[in-house]
């Protein structure tokens, strides 16, 4: 195996939720607030959805609310198909959300109110990022560390990197594996894991399996 020249330093992200005090009880109110709330709030309800650690039916808070509380499943499906990581900016995500809601309101202009207590509450977060004291220099160490770190660390390197590093960004793991370890094929295998279809624990286990398989093949001299 090629020797790495740089360490991979595991970090972790902890988010504290901040309430904006804004809430919507129906789709029209939701649309109005999506158009006016700060970027941090849109980011929290879309990009940061996976920090929760579990998978539900949909992949952002807006679609989850539309499906679960408004019971507008077609709308929920359309909202869930918006991929915030491939869109260039928060503005683009906001536009997409509004476009889908407007299209739905054109067809169904009188949406009903949710029952009291089930309103959509717009939040944002403040985030604290800190090193967890684990550095790895090769795949064997990386595998041990991957099992050891908290789920917040997996979130930070697998999801947050896509926000942090800007347009076209991928996860931190595959970047290090490609650029430092020079293992492009392994990096591609990690990038092939669909970020929308797994819980964080499932992401951890997928990466572990992919890397383990690669290391085994490498030991047998068949890794590419």
């Amino acid at each position, binding site marked *: 195996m090629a020797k790495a020249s740089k360490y991979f330093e595991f970090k*972790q992200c*902890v988010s*504290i*939720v*901040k*309430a904006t*005090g*804004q809430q919507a009880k129906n789709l029209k109110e939701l649309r109005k607030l999506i158009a006016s709330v700060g970027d*941090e709030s849109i980011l929290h309800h879309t990009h940061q959805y996976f920090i929760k*650690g*579990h998978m*539900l039916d949909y992949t952002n808070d807006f679609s989850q609310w539309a499906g679960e509380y408004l019971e507008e499943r077609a709308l929920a499906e359309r909202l869930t198909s918006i991929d915030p990581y491939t869109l260039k900016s928060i503005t683009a995500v906001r536009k997409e959300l509004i476009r889908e809601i407007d299209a739905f309101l054109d067809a169904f202009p009188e949406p009903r109110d949710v029952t*009291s*207590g089930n*309103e959509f*509450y717009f*939040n*944002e*977060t*403040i*985030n*604290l*990022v*800190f*090193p*967890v*004291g684990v550095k790895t220099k090769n795949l064997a160490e990386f595998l041990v560390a991957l099992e*050891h*770190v*908290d*789920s*917040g*660390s997996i979130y930070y390197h697998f999801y947050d990197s896509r926000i942090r590093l800007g347009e076209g960004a991928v996860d931190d793991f595959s970047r290090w594996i490609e650029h430092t370890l020079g293992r492009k094929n392994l990096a591609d295998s990690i990038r092939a894991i669909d970020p929308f279809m797994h819980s964080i624990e499932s992401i951890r286990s997928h990466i572990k399996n992919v890397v383990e398989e690669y290391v085994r093949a490498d030991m047998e001299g068949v890794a590419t």
Partner: protein
Amino acid sequence: MIRQYSGIAPKGDLQLIQNLCRKLKGKSFLHINSTREGGGVAEILNRMIPLLQDLSIDARWEVIEGDARFFDFTKKVHNALQGNKEAFTKKMWDYYYEVNKRNRKNLNLVADAVLIHDPQPAPLIDYRPRSKKTIWMWRCHIDISNPMQGCWSNLKKHIVKYDTAIFSVTKFSKSLPIHEYIVTPSIDPLSDKNRDLTVEEINEVADRFNIPRDKPIILQVSRFDRFKDPIGVINAYKIVKNYNDCRLILVGSSATDDPEGEAILNEVRDYASDDPDILILLLPPDHHTEINAIQRMSDIILQKSIKEGFGLTVSEAMWKEKPVIGGAVGGIPLQIVHGVTGFVVYSVEGAAYRIRQYLNNPELAKEMGRTGKEYVRNNFLLTRQIRDYLSLWYCSSVRGNKKVFEL
């Protein structure tokens, strides 16, 4: 002290607590509430203050004093904030302010960060020492999603003078001109209520309370209160009995000072009549180990509330790897991710259906229990709450409007 949580709480939370304490080393953190014993706030402060002191934070805990007239009034405020109709007079509010003013003379309010818990000491904000570098936070532990408006308006006059308000659940937050953060409550995994017990300890409790272990046990632990729906729990159990054999245990604290509680207890006893598989236990409020043991010997744990604050009994049950079923109210849906860490229900029939589902799918019950424990580990342990308070203090002490803080 923090080492006691090693291997129990998430590593990252413990690291962040230590990291923040290093940054805030020597600074003072004052907490003020209205009782030294009893209730969740005192329970958390009893643990948190020594832990912070151990990490070189000058943490202090002060308690305001008041007479029966003061506490009768603040009890009314508590109820009104939860949506009950109460009668208030200007004289009452004046007395509330007066008691706080009197308390101020006995309290040292000089601290880098001050966290005032609940409405009782809220007016102390008027006596904040003049220094720009301090932060004053008001922590609301009550469900104020639907308050009596007049009462909230009066209290709000004090709250808006704080730098920050902290609520337990987003839907309890208000539209305020100050920062508002969400910090969920927590359980202490090392307390008698939640610590690991030996098989002998569990068996001893079963023997002492004559609890047979021959059938699956369905449990609800709660006060005998209409909002906890004990009759609904019995009805759900009766439906289940048509299909699956089991026992039902309802455990509550004795409530001699609560006439309504006693009436409901009698109603529940009558309703259970002479069903030998229903066990109703009244325990003194300090029987934490006993409740822990009964939770651990149970197979399914319910919190079928129809109104709830946060409902931490759900996290307590999940921490013990029990499959849970809870009413879709208050903070219960935050703890029970439906179909992932348990089931949220909306009716007696729903509760019965989910009990049967667990009883007939032991693997599902086991998996939900396992997932539930990890969910509590990551979200509802005391260390996470301490982490959040320190994070808010630290982030508030840094100038500017930063959203990401690299430590």
